[in-house]
């Protein structure tokens, strides 16, 4: 049964994955793959490479689920981290860098097969985060976007932007800290994710 695990939390699914439960991996995929793939496309700007990043990221989930510790992060955060890291590794290897990472990679999400609830939630979240990003000082937003969406390392950014490495580090630090504050302020209801029902 495809959605036999639909009632379980992400964290419970990871525990099942750690015991070799393939259906649990499928359920996690159903919950996270949409965002993971969108992120990989944004970083890699190539659908085939993005698929590779998602596949390898989920393979890491499968292989290392037993080492996941829920007190350190949510399961979805952990999975997205693994996929993002693969995407960054791939983009650095391919040198397939965004020429203009600051140009909004506005996603065209029309005509997808997702349910309207998830679609609406994603659009809402996307707008919320983009609004928060716009409130950051330009230099902080630039450092964060070039690093996270462009795959540039902090050393590469220092060189590219012609500023000391320490400056890049503090822009990233201050920018992420502020972004988190802004998002906390904006999140009235605690739920990050919609309830997924089959």
């Amino acid at each position: 049964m495809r959605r036999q695990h639909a009632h379980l939390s992400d964290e419970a699914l990871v525990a099942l994955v750690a015991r070799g439960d393939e259906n649990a991996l499928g359920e996690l995929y159903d919950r996270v793959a949409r965002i993971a793939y969108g992120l990989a496309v944004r970083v890699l700007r190539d659908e085939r490479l993005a698929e590779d990043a998602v596949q390898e990221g989920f393979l890491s989930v499968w292989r290392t689920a037993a080492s996941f510790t829920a007190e350190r992060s949510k399961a979805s955060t952990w999975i997205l981290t693994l996929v993002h890291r693969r995407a960054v590794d791939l983009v650095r290897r391919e040198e397939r860098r965004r020429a203009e990472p600051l140009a909004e990679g506005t996603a065209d999400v029309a005509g997808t097969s997702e349910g309207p609830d998830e679609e609406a939630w994603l659009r809402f979240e996307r707008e919320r985060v983009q609004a928060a990003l716009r409130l950051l000082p330009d230099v902080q937003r630039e450092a964060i976007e070039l690093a996270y969406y462009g795959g540039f390392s902090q050393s590469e950014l220092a060189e590219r932007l012609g500023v000391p490495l320490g400056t890049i580090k503090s822009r990233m630090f201050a920018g992420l800290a502020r972004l988190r504050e802004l998002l906390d302020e904006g999140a009235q209801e605690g739920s990050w994710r919609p309830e997924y029902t089959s």
Partner: protein
Amino acid sequence: METGIHELTAAYALDALEPEERVAYEAHLPGCESCREELATFLQATEALAVAASGPTPAPELRERVLASARAEPQLVVPLAGSRRRAAVPVLAGVAAVAAVVAVALGLWAAHLSSDLSSTRSALDRQRAAAIVLADPTARRVPLKAGAGQLVVNEQGRAVLLLDGLPAAPAGKTYETWIIASGTPVAAGLFAGGASPDVVGVEGVVGNGDVVAVTVEKAGGTMKPTTPPVIASSSI
């Protein structure tokens, strides 16, 4: 290396570290509670960035591709003391990988128990670095020509020896690991042996065509190998 490593938390959360820095930071993390807490909060922000990037829907075939690749892969399972393995892992490589991670987990645990802080830290760093290589999906296995086990090498040239049944080094002796690049051996760490399976991180970076070997040397190690290797990998 230790200086300023706390400042890497934001860049780590953004995946904006070079591979070497990433390994160093991950080795630092288990021993630094303030970095772990800070990282957890930064990761909330990067997850939001991930959501904000969401774009096209993946092709339906990708789901089956992901599941098929998982099916073909043995898992790294870390059963804690006393837990029972539920399913046997069918392939030998799987058994070795499972055993290796158990060994890493036990090593971490043993290191925690050690009272000598600096040796705890370096043992933790080594074990942590080994765990990172073993968990790396791009790591590949290199067979051994001499000895039982395998060598696992990731794309950054970090290598870990997984050894089966190597007895403890004789009294007054140690095992010494070597990276042999174009015929020249370079010392790559000492270990005592006697754990089976044993997980031995190779210090330094290996390149294509190199060989990793292990010899028995006098305690404290030597600059050049003086005995024939007991372990030798194929060319990497």
